[in-house]
């Protein structure tokens, strides 16, 4: 052990590699057979995929990139969307700093070590997003979007750094940041003579529908979950009926209801826009699922907590608000992310009732005169799939990370 020559090192390394191969690929005769058959199959698939990727003509994506991202958003107002992007990145920077600061304070209070997230861990966690942004920028026709994106990154980092100067009161109420950010975003994009969200489209509309759908459905879902756990039989039965009814039907039936039947419920010829009607349908539908998620969280709070509240002389409402809900909602975060992911995927359903989201944009672009009947859906649909894959993959990994951190299911 004391004298190891370089030669010996290489020998052990090769034997280690051989041992790894033997253990993981060729341990028994059927494992060897599996490896060979599977390896051949995988090589074949990779070969075909590579051939396809080298062969495709991406003109359709270059020409239609704006359609995919924002639908028919007026060209002369595109700078409003960049303002929106800047507001978003500033908000994310500030919010991330505030959360990190809160975690630090908590760790200090508990006398635990502070774990600093380095930029390597950020890249490891969010590499799919970086790759997606790089791919999108690769398809732009001018260098301007790349510069603007770099600007957004700079603003995000700047906001994170300057977030240290935020007053303690704001950091403590970190939820204020996304709230103010959302209002500022809406005003920046749609306020002061901009086009409202019924004219938004493309991937932008998938994101907006997801965030707005979950945010609007949450209060309703919380009420339904509390109603389902209520000791008042009438309230309980009404909640159960609503939840089970909506969980029993497919989302597309709700969207059809929003698109074709919601107008009958409002007297007169005045109509909400398609976007609003679909958002109402999505909110109603999601609230039933969120109610079940929140119910899971409420059930995870031990009964002793409620009894402790009662023995302190708190009213039922105060017990719920000060003791049960904070614990229940914290436990529910990973499941809420799961719900968010599933809604994100389901927002593509609005394409069926002809709201121009990313999926519909990917389809209509192949019907343009210069691109039609060339089988280009094989190019545009995987491109659209990449957007959803990146979003869902990153979120599901973050949710698993959060789950580990919160220790859900370990206590």
């Amino acid at each position: 052990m004391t004298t190891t020559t370089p030669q010996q090192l290489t020998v052990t390394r090769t034997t280690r590699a051989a041992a790894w191969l033997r253990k993981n690929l060729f341990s028994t005769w059927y494992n060897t057979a599996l490896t060979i058959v599977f390896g051949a199959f995988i090589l074949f698939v990779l070969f075909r995929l590579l051939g396809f990727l080298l062969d495709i003509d991406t003109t359709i994506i270059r020409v239609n990139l704006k359609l995919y991202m924002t639908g028919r958003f007026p060209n002369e107002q595109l700078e409003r969307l960049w303002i929106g992007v800047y507001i978003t990145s500033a908000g994310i920077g500030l919010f991330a700093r505030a959360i990190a600061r809160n975690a630090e304070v908590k760790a200090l209070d508990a006398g635990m070590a502070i774990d600093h997230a380095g930029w390597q861990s950020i890249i490891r966690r969010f590499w799919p997003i970086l790759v997606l942004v790089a791919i999108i920028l690769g398809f732009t026709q001018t260098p301007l979007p790349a510069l603007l994106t770099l600007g957004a990154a700079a603003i995000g980092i700047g906001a994170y750094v300057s977030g240290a100067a935020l007053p303690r009161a704001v950091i403590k109420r970190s939820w204020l940041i996304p709230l103010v950010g959302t209002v500022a975003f809406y005003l920046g994009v749609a306020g002061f003579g901009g086009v409202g969200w019924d004219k938004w489209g493309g991937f932008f509309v998938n994101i907006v529908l997801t965030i707005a759908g979950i945010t609007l459905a949450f209060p309703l879902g919380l009420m339904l979950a509390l109603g389902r756990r209520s000791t008042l039989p009438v309230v309980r039965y009404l909640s159960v009926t609503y939840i089970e009814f909506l969980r029993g039907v497919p989302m597309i039936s709700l969207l059809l209801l929003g698109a074709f039947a919601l107008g009958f419920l409002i007297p007169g010829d005045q109509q909400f826009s398609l976007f609003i009607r679909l958002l109402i349908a999505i909110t109603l539908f999601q609230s039933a699922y969120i109610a079940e998620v929140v119910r899971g969280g409420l059930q995870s709070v031990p009964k002793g907590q409620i009894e402790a509240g009662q023995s302190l002389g708190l009213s039922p409402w105060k017990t719920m608000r000060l003791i049960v809900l904070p614990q229940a909602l914290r436990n529910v975060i990973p499941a809420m992310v799961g719900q968010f992911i599933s809604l994100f995927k389901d927002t593509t359903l609005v394409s069926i009732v002809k709201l121009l989201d990313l999926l519909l944009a990917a389809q209509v672009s192949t019907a343009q005169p210069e691109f039609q009947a060339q089988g280009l859906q094989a190019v545009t649909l995987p491109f659209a799939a990449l957007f959803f894959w990146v979003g869902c993959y990153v979120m599901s990994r973050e949710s698993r990370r959060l789950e580990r951190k919160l220790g859900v299911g370990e206590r």
Partner: protein
Amino acid sequence: MTAIDTPGGTVRPPFWRDIRVIRVVLQVLAVVVVFGALWLLGNNLRNELIRKNLPTNFDFLDRPTGVTISDSGFDPGSPVSAALLAGIKNTFLLAIVGIPLLTILGTLIGVARLSTNWLVAKAAGVYVETIRNIPPLLIIIFVFNAVILQLPAPNDPATPFDWFVISNLKIVGPSLITESGAGLLWIIMLLGLIAAVAVGIWRTRYSERTGHPHHRILIGFGVVVVFAVIGYLIAGNPIQVALPRLDGRIITGGFGGLGSYFSLLAALVIYTASHVAEIVRGSILAVPKGQTEAANALALSGFQRLRFVTLPQALRIAIPPIINQYLNFVKNTSLAIAIGFAEITLITFQAIGNGYPAPQLIVLLMAAYLVFSLTISVMVNILNRRLQLVGR
């Protein structure tokens, strides 16, 4: 309960702080608010339907639909209700074929993810992480447009081995047709089944008496096969393979379906299997390690360990969420609307397009799914209760 004894006597709280009164008032209030809102909306609905000269009841179900269902010989002049029933039948056709397929595929991939073979485990992992993070609707449209529609046109289909006729409209394979003497075969098969059950009972008793392994499934299956072979020989080739034949654009004989049917089936099976795979993997991992170690300590073989120790416990955890995935599969068949396969959602959509009142039709659509979902969830609840009794 509510009366409080004080030195001065019994004091009752005022009625507005009496919990019994509050409970009643709250519940009455909930009923009034909910049913009031429903009444208001119903009233609006009725007025608007009348204003737009649409029927306010369900009598339109007897009127002709004008809906065409390709490849079914469905008469567009038949009533709306018949079209809806035809749609339900097509939904069932998807569910009956898709559910076994996705169970098999999902289980295979889930087990593969736990394989000791690095390559197999990684490939299964990549499959799951790729597919379940893509919207199912996108997969359906991709399979339909980029795979099925790229097949040869219906007037010049591919006919591999003369066993299949494949075009972008329809895919047909060989079917089995029964000839005279099939009745005799069925009777002999039935006798074989009875014999198999009898042998199975005998083997079980034998096993209980002696402690030897019973192998009842294996032996019973063998009995059925023996009877089937004998019956087939006695009845004289009663079952034959019929190949699809092509006359111009018309395919006669054989067994198959529309391209849109296969797109939907393939896409949804691929998508749902990725979720089932995760459930299977999670359930196997959830069996405590001590169980495996105990099985090893008893010197059970690898197969015995899986068959008698790990799988029975894993299945108990896996079955309820897997049935939930079956429900999701059936609900996702409604996405057929995007590629034009005539199941109930598309029929509803077309009937709305033909001027029939949307509110009633959508209520019927929801009711159809609801009946199905609630039946399944009642069954899951019963199953859950039984599964729990077995364990603790």
